[in-house]
């Protein structure tokens, strides 16, 4: 790419022109709601991108900061009647901001290198890090350090990071799920299950539950060992190059042609997995396979409803139903426009009553690494989410993305109150798996 070109200038200009600045995205944009400043709105950000494409604005530090301030929640794409492809615009702008190096600093480069190009690039490295983190907690060192006030000696951000660090499961997905599992009776569908990165080490039970639910619905489940990261965090953070190599690696390992569907249970991953054809559009070797991949990728709920999942039978006797509410992960409802299917699953659960949450489709502030990079806005959104959830009176919160699950958990912890009064925060597929299991015990 020559020096005077950039990703925004190279974009098809009609993608930028598609925004006719009607403003209907504004009331759904969290950063606009927080500030009421146009620059912090989708329409404002697109105008800056267009100014760059038109050569009226250089990529500045302010431009990069603005793109970093965007959550990438894609709520604007649901609100937009004109069908602006904000996802593509945003990814290009973030990548261009990275490429220009306006935000670069040695510390930032190191963090990016370690996280994006090492931990999230090599499955063994992430699992090793997860194992060490688990040991740190299990052996009592964490309790010792926290009790000693050690973290108060370190910079505040590190202390926060330590508190926010994800809980690690003792057993990861590859221990819990066999490489191939067959359903009782005849297999009606053959699917491959993607176990994710965070999901794999922090929520491996969700992966097990997903396999159980698929098996209960006549799917033969293949779960490749040591899967690669899908690359969504890379794209989100402007590293398109690494994302593309990860996608290629994924396509090398899994042949979409062999399966009826590729199942993801993490909203953020699914949203990105469905865009492999777009990411690899310029790669003649992979473009066809990527298209097949995107075409076959399904979120677990999308798939369950598509194949007409079996509604679990009520265990006798049914008591007072327990109120459950649903928080929509951005990359499920906005990224993939999947809104009715998870609710259909929740409504099918015996013993539960679905109560809608106000602003259920508004971001919780997790947004990949946003809670670390933009703690102020992330906390504002988190607390708003917790208040909305509390207003429903639900004691179970269902949500289908590991980041949201962690963020909401933390929100309730920060809000304080009796630990026993805190709601259970759980992936809907876990509830469905439990319901099937309860049937068997009847």
């Amino acid at each position, binding site marked *: 790419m020559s020096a005077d070109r950039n990703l925004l200038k190279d974009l098809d200009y009609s993608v930028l022109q598609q925004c006719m600045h009607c403003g209907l995205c*504004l009331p759904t944009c969290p950063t606009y709601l927080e500030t009421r400043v146009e620059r912090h709105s989708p329409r404002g950000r697109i105008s800056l991108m267009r100014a760059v494409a038109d050569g009226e604005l250089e990529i500045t530090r302010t431009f990069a900061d603005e793109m970093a301030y965007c959550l990438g929640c894609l709520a604007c794409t649901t609100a937009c009647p004109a069908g602006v492809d904000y996802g593509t615009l945003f990814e290009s702008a973030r990548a261009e901001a990275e490429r220009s190096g306006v935000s670069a600093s040695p510390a930032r480069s190191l963090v990016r290198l370690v996280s994006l190009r090492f931990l999230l690039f090599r499955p063994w490295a992430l699992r090793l890090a997860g194992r060490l983190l688990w040991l740190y907690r299990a052996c009592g060192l964490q309790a010792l350090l926290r009790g000693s006030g050690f973290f108060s000696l370190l910079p505040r951000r590190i202390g926060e990071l330590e508190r926010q660090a994800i809980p690690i499961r003792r057993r990861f997905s590859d221990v819990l799920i066999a490489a191939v599992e067959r359903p009782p009776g005849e297999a009606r569908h053959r699917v491959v299950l993607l176990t994710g990165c965070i999901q794999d080490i922090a929520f491996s039970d969700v992966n097990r539950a997903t396999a159980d639910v698929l098996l209960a619905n006549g799917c033969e489940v293949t779960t490749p060992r040591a899967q690669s990261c899908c690359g969504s965090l890379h794209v989100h953070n402007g590293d398109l190059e690494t994302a593309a190599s990860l996608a290629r690696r994924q396509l090398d390992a899994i042949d979409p042609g062999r399966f009826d569907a590729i199942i993801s249970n993490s909203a953020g991953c699914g949203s990105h997995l469905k865009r492999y054809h777009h990411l690899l559009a310029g790669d003649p070797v992979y473009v066809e396979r990527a298209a097949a991949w995107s075409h076959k990728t399904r979120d677990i709920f999308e798939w369950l409803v598509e194949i007409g999942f079996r509604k679990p039978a009520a265990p006798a006797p049914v008591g007072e139903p327990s109120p459950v509410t649903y928080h929509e992960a951005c990359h499920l409802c906005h990224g993939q426009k999947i809104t009715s299917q998870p609710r259909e699953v929740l409504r099918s659960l015996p013993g539960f009553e679905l109560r809608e949450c106000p602003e259920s489709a508004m971001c919780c502030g997790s947004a990949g690494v946003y809670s670390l990079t933009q703690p102020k806005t992330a906390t504002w959104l988190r607390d708003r989410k917790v208040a909305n959830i509390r207003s429903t009176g639900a004691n179970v919160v269902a949500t289908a993305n590991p980041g949201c699950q962690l963020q909401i958990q933390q929100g309730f912890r920060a809000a304080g109150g009796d630990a026993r009064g805190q709601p259970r925060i759980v992936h809907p597929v876990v509830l469905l798996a439990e319901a099937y299991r309860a049937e068997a015990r009847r």
Partner: protein
Amino acid sequence: MTDQLIRLLGPGQVLTQKEDLIPYSFDGTPVFRQMPAAVVFPRSAAEVVAVLGVARQHKAPVVARGSGTGLSGGSIPVPGSIVLCLVRMDRLIELDARNFTLRAQAGVLTQAIYDAADAAGLFYPPDPGSMKISTIGGNVAENSGGLRGLKYGVTRDYVMGLEVVLAGGEICRFGNKCVKDVSGYNLKDVFVGSEGTLGIVTEVLLKLLPRPAARQTLLASYSRMDAAAETVSAIIAARIVPCTMEFLDSKTIRCVDAYAHVGLPLDAEALLLVEVDGHPAAVADDAAQVARICGENGATSVRLAADAAEAARLATARRSAFSALARMKPTTILEDATVPRSELARMIRFIQETGARHSLEIATFGHFGDGNLHPTFLTNERDQAEMHRVELAMREIFAFALELGGTITGEHGVGLAKKAFLKGQMGEASYNLLRKLKATLDPDNLLNPGKIFDT
């Protein structure tokens, strides 16, 4: 000047960086663009007075702005101007259920006003397409319309009082909660629709109505556009006044459904969306009659909305029509030529012929009940030859609308977009009166200069 503004309002309320100003250089129109010198966010009328003081001192023009969703270029900055953005004056001051009034600061969103009234069992009818984000101050400045014009009128019909800051810094209050008030000139109406050229509206007192007890929405499909127009005439002839009678042509139908997925009949040539409201018995009777009249006038199918939720989805879908049309071509130019209801069919035919004559793609939708049409040019601003043809077609459409006793703008305002056509509609004497009024209230030509007419 910037330092003075920051001293008065605080650093968080003043923007001057290039990256901050670019997003304030446009509104909801496609082609007008101009950078201001600064954007300020006053939080009270007193701060507006202070900003105007600085502006007078530096002879900097002041452009009032709400959410920037205008469709005539009214809030496009003037070179060197201060954009006075009122979105942070967003306090809903009082809802008076005994007098059916609501008092709010200018930056309150139209949707919030509707919701507050609704929660009290009351009703604020004006519902411009952008109501989810438009501010009430902007609605008053543009005298916005919406879908319910036929039965309920427009913003002007609900303004009982205003607080306005004049160019000289005086704070004036007009009107009150009295239904009857003939004290002095009716000055509030001078400011309604004045597009920020005569004063800055900082607070509004609005009239509310009791919320209609029942509503019913019907959707009628047609294979001929004329049949839809004839239906409207027949409904009115039967002395039925629906609250909305919206019309969509085939292009609009397809774009709207691609966005809203509300199951519009994609093969229809034209669609009428009719809502009747009022007492449940009257609504049931009106709805049955409307359905019958639609059938008698060639509707190929008539569908009743199953419930309030479906009716709301259909109305929301219709409100998105303008933006949804942007799916077709890079540039979408929306017009709002308006004619007396009785001339609708002729006007629509003329628009179709004009589009064909200039080989332009025009989608048409609009408020059939009140004669307010939205011919929308689907074009590309980068194609100069085509843009020239758009301009020619627009001129012809306006001229024909005036010939039919209509107006160049039903609800979007003159702003920059219709400036060239205003004199033709008003005539010399009335047009000059506008300028005299402006010169009296704003002798230094400080407030939104160059909008509506050249000074």
